[in-house]
């Protein structure tokens, strides 16, 4: 039950438990860096050894779909296959099998496993804005920005709350640039 000691983030020396959960900053005994350490009960509880699944003892007893020699403990909540303790993956209070987990991750259905998303609204805004600063690149940037904004308007955005104002600003900027270029070309052709 002895906790794994917390190391100072400056000198990497182990901080003594007397500094833990103190109400204010305390100096690290090794380097003197003023540190506040908030430790939670998880630090005291070592992870239990992983279950390897119980073997089937009575013939005819339900066994795991993936390990026929192991006793089934519950069904997969996605595909219904029987699973042993080894194959049971708990996710948000749901029990699923590794195959469903892999399929869900591949199809992007499991938001809990997503670790990256493309933000098309920011992309459209960047393509509409930055070329405008150099004037001539906006001839190409504006239509691309408009395309991105319209093409990905309904595409999934961030997993955290996010409005659509970037798309709107990108469309307005792109239309303004396209309008400006059109007016300029018309003026040039009319002058000739």
């Amino acid at each position, binding site marked *: 039950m002895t906790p794994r000691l917390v190391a100072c983030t400056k000198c990497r020396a182990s901080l003594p438990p007397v500094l833990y959960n103190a109400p204010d900053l305390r100096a690290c005994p090794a380097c003197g*860096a*003023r540190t506040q350490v908030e430790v939670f009960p998880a630090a005291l509880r070592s992870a239990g050894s992983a279950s390897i699944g119980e073997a089937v003892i009575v013939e005819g007893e339900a066994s795991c779909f993936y390990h026929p020699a192991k006793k089934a403990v519950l069904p997969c909540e996605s595909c219904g296959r029987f699973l042993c303790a080894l194959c049971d993956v708990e996710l948000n209070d749901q029990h699923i099998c590794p195959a469903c987990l892999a399929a869900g991750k591949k199809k992007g259905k499991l938001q809990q496993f997503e670790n990256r998303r493309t933000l098309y609204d920011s992309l459209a805004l960047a393509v509409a804005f930055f070329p405008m600063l150099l004037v001539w690149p906006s001839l190409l940037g504006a239509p691309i920005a408009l395309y991105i904004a319209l093409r990905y308007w309904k595409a999934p955005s961030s997993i955290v709350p996010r409005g659509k104002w970037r798309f709107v600003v990108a469309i307005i900027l792109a239309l303004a640039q396209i309008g400006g270029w059109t007016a300029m070309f018309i003026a040039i052709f009319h002058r000739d």
Partner: protein
Amino acid sequence: MAAPAPYTKLPGRGLRRAILAVTATRCRLWLAADHLLAVDYTIASEEYRRFYFRDIEAFIVRRTAQRQVWNWILLALLLLTAGPFFVAWRSEGSGGFLITTLIFAAFWSICLLVNTLRGPTCQTHIRTAVQLEQLPSLSRLPVARRVLRLLQPLIIEAQGAATSEELAAAPWMAATTPVGPASAVRSEPKPPRADRGYLHGALFGLLIAEAALTAVAYFFGDEPISIFSLLAMLGGCVICVTALIRQGETDLSAAVRGLAKVALGYYALKSVIGFVYMMIFAVRNPGTPMVTGLEMVDEPGFSEVALGSAGLGAAIGLIGLIVLLGHFRRPPASPAA
């Protein structure tokens, strides 16, 4: 009624700098029902790291000297621009140079003030059984403490309070005893801090005073009064930034807070317009000294813009004072626990 958003934004934002990287990624923290989400934003994508409450072992907050370093740098920049300003002022040097140095000095002063008021800097790390990650968004001590106060009951609720055996092995764990159920902490926000709005009152008053001084200076061509008008604007800028920083978590009405933001927008717009006119004047009249700004009165549209902006400032100040009067009449809120 729309379903509640699964993530709530936590205070604080920061930058994660990669070695030899030209750009830094912006970082924010979001709170979910059972985990903390660290989001790193690049130009067109975002990356997520999840820290489940049941896995979090510790938070380590270490105070750094970054604020002091930046304060020294900003002070040096302020002195570098304020010095030439006073030399030019005393020798009645070029007006364009005078105002340029004044604008830069005001900019560095505001940066210095903001950096000081945001509180001491720190580095915050989160530790689980298998990782130690820095949380760049918690880079200011007051913000880090506020977030930890918010997270502590949620983590304790997810992990369960320390058992008697655990407490015997680690007596310091008693300090993590939750103050109540996490759901209660979530549903009952921290009571707002009582604020009588004196700072906002000073801001709105200065806006009106500046407008009156500008009008008098232009109608009577009075140079000293024009300088007082400029000083009122600078003072108003400083008070406006201070009021905006301090108004968070106070019982001030949304209208008063909003008007403080409008005032900042007004000052920013006025500074930009003034700078543009100053540049035009400096180009058209090279070598002509400019001290008060009244020299630009013959520039086309300058008087109209100056008086119009003064009228706008007076309107913001007047509306602000009227709204603030309603706040004054309310009984003071009980002080936050």
